[in-house]
């Protein structure tokens, strides 16, 4: 995983729920690439038309609230979103993202610091979040060591396989 990620910002408001990120009617889809084709489809159709792999999502508080559907994280990870920076995350979304190897950073003040289409630079090692368009610089909340370990392994399954291999 790259430690420093740069990309164009897609800005979302507070309380973006998993029904909005990934509609329930597509929940029977198992193929992650197919899942990515429905991200934000119903409420933010512009995302699918204009967002590109490598773009960064910046959101308000409580991103990913609602259902436990993992596809809401899978869809963004396989769309090619390298990191999500939000004021805060709903707990199951946070777990799902980390477990899939998608970095999610809670960063107080990030919502006010970014507008749609700004350029962001996120340093996963230091937690620094820079707005390259305005020069603003913020610090995200540190991730606990276990979470870092899971992300570094590329997700929970590679992490578990690594642990099983060590104990074998």
């Amino acid at each position, binding site marked *: 995983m790259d430690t420093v990620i740069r990309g164009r910002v897609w800005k979302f408001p507070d309380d973006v729920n998993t029904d909005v990120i990934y509609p329930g009617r597509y929940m*029977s889809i198992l193929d992650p690439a197919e899942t990515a084709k429905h991200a934000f489809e119903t409420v933010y159709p512009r995302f699918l038309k204009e967002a590109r792999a490598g773009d960064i999502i910046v959101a308000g508080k409580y991103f990913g609230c609602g259902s*436990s559907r993992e596809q809401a994280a899978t869809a963004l990870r396989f769309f090619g979103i390298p990191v999500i920076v939000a004021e*805060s995350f709903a*707990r199951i979304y946070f777990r799902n993202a980390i477990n899939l190897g998608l970095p999610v950073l809670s960063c107080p003040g990030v919502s006010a610091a970014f507008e749609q289409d700004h350029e962001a630079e996120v340093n996963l090692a230091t937690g620094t979040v820079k707005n390259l368009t305005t020069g603003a610089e913020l610090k995200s909340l540190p991730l606990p060591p276990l979470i870092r370990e899971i992300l570094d392994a590329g997700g929970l399954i590679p992490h*578990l396989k690594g642990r099983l291999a060590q104990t074998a």
Partner: protein
Amino acid sequence: MPMTMAEKILARSAGRSTTIAGEIVEAAVNVAMSHENAGMVLHHFKTIGASRVWDPERIVIVFDHRIPAESERTATTHKTIREFVRAQGIRNFYDINVGICHQVLPEHGHSRPGELLVGTDSHTTTHGAFGCFGTGIGATEMACVWATGKLWLRVPETIRIEVTGQFPAFVSAKDLVLYVIGKLGADGADYKAVEYAGPTIDAMTIASRMVLSNLSMEMGAKVAFVEPDEKTVRYVRERTDVPFEPIFPDRDAKYVQTLKVDVSTLRPQIACPHAVDNVKPIDEVGEVKVNQALLGSCTNGRLEDLQVAASILRGRKVHPETRMLVIPASWAIYEEAMKAGLLFDLIGAGAVICNPGCGPCLGVHQGILAPGERCISSTNRNFQGRMGSPEAEVYLGSPAVVAASAVAGRIIDPEKL
């Protein structure tokens, strides 16, 4: 050191004498529940390379989200899971004719006081009504639970909610929990546990307690406990031989917040579009015509919910411009409602009875909304686009409000019908 229920159960699950809020522990899971998303769990499980699940007796799978299969893709998922449970010897498998997971697990004795129950469904908080640490997780981590029986969990801080007073007529647990969500906000309990206590909770039926624990998810709760009492123990004992040991909070346990609510003057509460914390007393909702009235779901599809609806609909008719859907939460409830004559009252009034399951709550089938339509619903989420068109609106209320509104064709206080 004094501990909350969450701290005590996670200490027990982690094989330790104490834990403290904020710590991350590796916990041993007692029950691992999935519904149709067992298909996705299985997909991940195969990539781990494990051939057998850690303990087939501790895995429970319930079909409820799309039953009977609404598409070929779902039919294929159902088939794959049926083959998997047979091959793995998973006996606690409930096919399309049993009910919604959060009702089926308690009914079959899988929700036990003092245990850790994880489910690949956010409303797994429901099982907190039995003093069980019930919490929602994702499919990838469930695959790891299937393989190892273990999972990392952060020990949550706890909010204590103390409830006193007697409910006025037609005001119920749903109104109480909507009121609390309105006060604390949609993320008011994010990453936190909730403990409900007080004389009002003690007097509540098991079914009503389940409403509180279930809907607490909508303020972000990781788990929402009701302390187990004689009622709880009797309910669980009647359904399982598996031994369990209830856990109670210490008197001087540390809470991050304490909320006191007196329900004696509580009005019916409505969560207006498109957020569950957009809660108003019914008197402030204004004139809202409804095209659909939905009674059901893991929140409010239990016998007492059908009873109050039938009492309102008996001898009345559903408004000609409104469709009413009734979905019992389980087959057991369906059968009891039939024996009690409630279904007769409901269909007599013009309601449509659907087979027990999640129904249209998550927008898959059985009552999807068209653009511009409005629904009054006893379910748990009113997010934009959840029940169909993003231009439709869902209002959440109690079973009594749903039934009365079905008759009036608009959202109405049952007292005023």
